[in-house]
């Protein structure tokens, strides 16, 4: 399948890209890594009149170490994030999530900004960012705004980005000492979209859980924060029984669908299993660090 014709433009600065968006929205599409967009264009399911290629804007690709947070340019390749020792040492959940994304050649081109903007319900980064309490920095010709992950993902392939806006940066707070993490998922084959996935981050002070964030992917129209599961752990701690109860709670607070690959019921079951796994793994890692 060959794509339908389009006008191709390559801005070399963020301002240029914003001007183009202003001019050509909503029929224009932004080309980041292309690993999700180009297949859709090849199927002729996506037929943008204008394709704005972001790959020549060097200002959009970076990983910066700031005092209390890491900032990542939207056009940073997934592979770069995977290989970054800075990310691994400061926000390791993001490293682990990246390893589950498709395959290495896809990660060579795929970008964090592209993945987040695409907002596939089964994608790893949206759930990871929800757990990491990340923020998205979005710019338009009129200015810029920061959107928390919890406000950013609205539905299936739907985010808070306006048609004239460009996601430029992802801001992730560094984790406090004593923090363990886990990103676990089950997919039919290695590299496939998750049937269900859990991103967990837990801070322990001695035996007390001082912080716990859990998010699930693949089991709702967008990543789902597992509030009930978290509450169960805060209430009753990390005993085997409490973890199982938390896992069961997680299975009930999600909104999974039945599709070709799994039924809604099965996704609930996997969510419970993975929540238990994630909690145990995060706990183990938190204890190792302490």
């Amino acid at each position: 399948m060959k794509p339908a014709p389009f006008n191709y433009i390559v801005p070399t600065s963020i301002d240029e890209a914003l001007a183009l968006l202003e001019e050509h929205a909503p029929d224009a599409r932004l080309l980041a890594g292309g690993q999700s967009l180009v297949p859709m264009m090849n199927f002729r399911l996506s037929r943008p009149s204008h394709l704005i290629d972001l790959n020549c804007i060097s200002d959009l690709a970076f990983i910066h170490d700031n005092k209390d947070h890491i900032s990542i340019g939207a056009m940073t390749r997934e592979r770069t994030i995977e290989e970054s020792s800075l990310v691994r040492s400061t926000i390791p959940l993001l490293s682990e999530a990246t390893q589950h994304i498709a395959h290495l050649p896809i990660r060579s081109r795929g970008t964090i900004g592209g993945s987040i903007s695409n907002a596939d319900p089964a994608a790893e980064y949206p759930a990871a960012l929800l757990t990491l309490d990340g923020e998205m920095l979005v710019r338009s010709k009129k200015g810029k705004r920061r959107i928390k992950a919890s406000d950013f993902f609205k539905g299936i392939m739907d985010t808070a980005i306006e048609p004239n806006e460009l996601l430029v940066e992802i801001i992730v707070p560094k984790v406090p000492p004593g923090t363990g993490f886990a990103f676990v998922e089950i997919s039919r084959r290695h590299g496939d979209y998750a049937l269900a996935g859990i991103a967990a981050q837990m801070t322990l002070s001695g035996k007390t859980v001082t912080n716990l964030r859990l998010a699930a992917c693949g089991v709702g129209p967008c990543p789902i924060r597992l509030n009930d599961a978290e509450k169960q752990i805060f209430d009753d701690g990390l005993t085997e029984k409490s973890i199982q109860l938390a896992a069961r709670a997680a299975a009930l607070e999600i909104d999974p669908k039945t599709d070709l690959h799994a039924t809604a019921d099965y996704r609930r079951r996997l969510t419970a299993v993975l929540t238990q796994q994630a909690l145990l793994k995060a706990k183990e890692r938190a204890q190792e660090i302490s």
Partner: protein
Amino acid sequence: MPDSIPGYIGQSVPRREDKRLLRGEGLFVADIQLPNMLHVAIARSQFPHARIKDIDLSKALSAEGVELAISGEDILEHLPPISGMQLTTPPGYQERVDTDIQIPDQPLIPHEKVRFVGEPYALVVAKNRYLAEDAIELISTNFDPMPPVATTDDALDRNAPLLHENLGRNVAAILHTKKGKGAEALKTAPHRLKRRFYHHRYAAMPMECRGVVADYDARTDTLTIWSSTQVVHWVRREVANSLGMPEENVRCIAPDVGGGFGGKGHVYPEDILVAYLARRLRRPVKWIEDRHEHFLNSTHSRDNIYDVEIGFDNNGRIETVVSDFVVDSGAYSPIGAGIAGNSIAHMLGPYDIPNYEASSKIVLTNRTPNAPYRGAGRPEVGFAMERAVDLVANELDLDPAEVRFRNMIKADQMPYSVGLTYRDGVPIVYDSGDYPKALERALEELGGLKSIRKRQKDALSQGRYIGLGLGCYVEGTGVGPFEGARVKIDATGKIVVATGACPQGQGHETVFAQVTADLWKVPIEDVYVTVADTAHVTMGYGTLASRSTVTASGAIQLASDEIKEKVFAIASDILETGVQDLELRDSGVGVKGVPGMHISFRDIATAARPGWGHKRPEGIDAGLEVTSYYEPPTVTWSYASNAAIVEVNPATGQVLIENYVEVHDAGVLVNPAIADGQVKGGLVQGLGGGLLEEITYDENGQLLTGSFMDYLLPSASDVPPITVIHQETPSPLNSLGVKGLGEGGAIAPPVVIANAVCDALRPFKAEINSTPVRWGDVAAIFGDDPFKATSTTTTPEMDE
């Protein structure tokens, strides 16, 4: 048989094909670029069933770069449909098997109605594929949708709309056969069990899609067609017939073909259409199928529902098998009743069963047509039979392995007359082999039955679920009607071979070089092999049905034998020695025991020339070139026993295959490494069929799985530890002792997995009688609570 000199047969000679393929210098049909070439895009139906009221091509015709746009109506006068009888049924078959066969013809482009989502209704020829696809979108159509016949139940309903009005029914064929007392014998069976089994729809899915390039030479009125096909001679025949040209003027070549597995084993409309377009436009024309088209338009397979009843005694001896099965053939049936015929012939497997009755309906539905895919009816019937054997064992509380041993035909019963007729019209006789030994070896390889059962028991007491799955089958291989080969001793003394075989990765150029080198006692470098080109062999059949090693070698041997007579006659004359004192040696003929007396093939070839100065004795015609056709007496029987140990995760239902063993017997192996690759490759395809691959339609006949995002092929991570053991019982049916093996690996894995999971879940009396085996279904067997079965164990890491 080649004698004491260590020959090439039996050696894992490195493949000749490798060098060019590894360097990116292979030639696949999409690689062919000819000057002035045009490109085809095809407009495909979005309706499963609709009348074509009107097709307006005017906007497409005036689009940029477009040379031609046609619909079914435009070719109505020029191009007949492809006959429904591409695969012929020999008279012997119809005498012994009840058949009612009316296979519908397949129009190249329909003009009255479309019958499946993806069926062509028009095409565009343009400067490049991008522009051709743009033009397709400018075609406007008026279709009158009809109620879809989405399933076989729909099709068989009394009030169902007819797909092919002229047939009067939605059934392409009905087959029936009986052995012994047939179903009557059930009445006196001590035990009976009845089940329905379903083997789902999946497909060959080669990595290279199909494609055709055609080039017409007006000066000589000849056509050259390159097609990614398994049957170059069939393509030539159909094109020649359709275009009213002598076969001699039509050449069909299959260049490097990127996998076929049966899906490229018949003539498709595009094979003929592209040839027609090249001749009409007087320019080379190229059509390359893209993957989405492949899902819609290249044949699917399997998709059988089996109703089976078994009669057996207290010892687990199976007395009677009755089966009634329905094949969802889609809108057409390119290989006629072949798949069902195979299933019927293979159901009794390696077992000694006195009574059998089988009926089959090949049903037409508004789905992509169904044609053979690796196994061609044997995986479907194997699933039903091998599940049934396990169920018999369960009823009697016997070990499924034991039940198999009790029913298997023993080595000393060979050759064994089955009492049924094969597709070639000949009564089935299993010619050689040791079925129980294969099963024994498979079990041994896994640690032995006793230790497996002990492991299983111990595991269960720890809350772990381990199962043993078995799958045993026999496979008729090397089927006729024939294969052709031309053998020539070239003027330079080299042996030049061409055969009608059409490889798609089987390494034929290497394998047939080995066979020929041994026949002529020459170094393998002195043998040149051409495959898949109708210009080099007048008549040929092709590569499908696990037949080429047997049939092409047979033809090479026949032709070689005939040339050898001449060669020896000429050598005898020149060396003034009796033929009985001569032998093949050192790329020529020499006198036995006399090193100095020798004449090279090169000199013999010179002597054999026609005209002045020839050195042929009286009565010997000129030339050292013979084309022969090997017509095998009947099929020769390969077989295998598969055994696998799986562990089921009670929390997630995931099935981990710990170890998969196949003991496989295809007689003498010409190239063991190639043979091993064929079996293992087929095996992994079978695992895909059992666990991952699934073609799904909705209730309206719309295809839901149209890309690799939805249709999951096994990747490297999905392959468990596999052991293949080759048991080599030579075939008594040909002098090389070879049998076919291309398909075997793919036959048993689905039923082995189902049996293994059921075995692991014996405490729950689980029955899995359909494929694919789904994790969700397995998990549900444990109940709703994923934590119940594993309160003392951590869930094993399955994904990494």
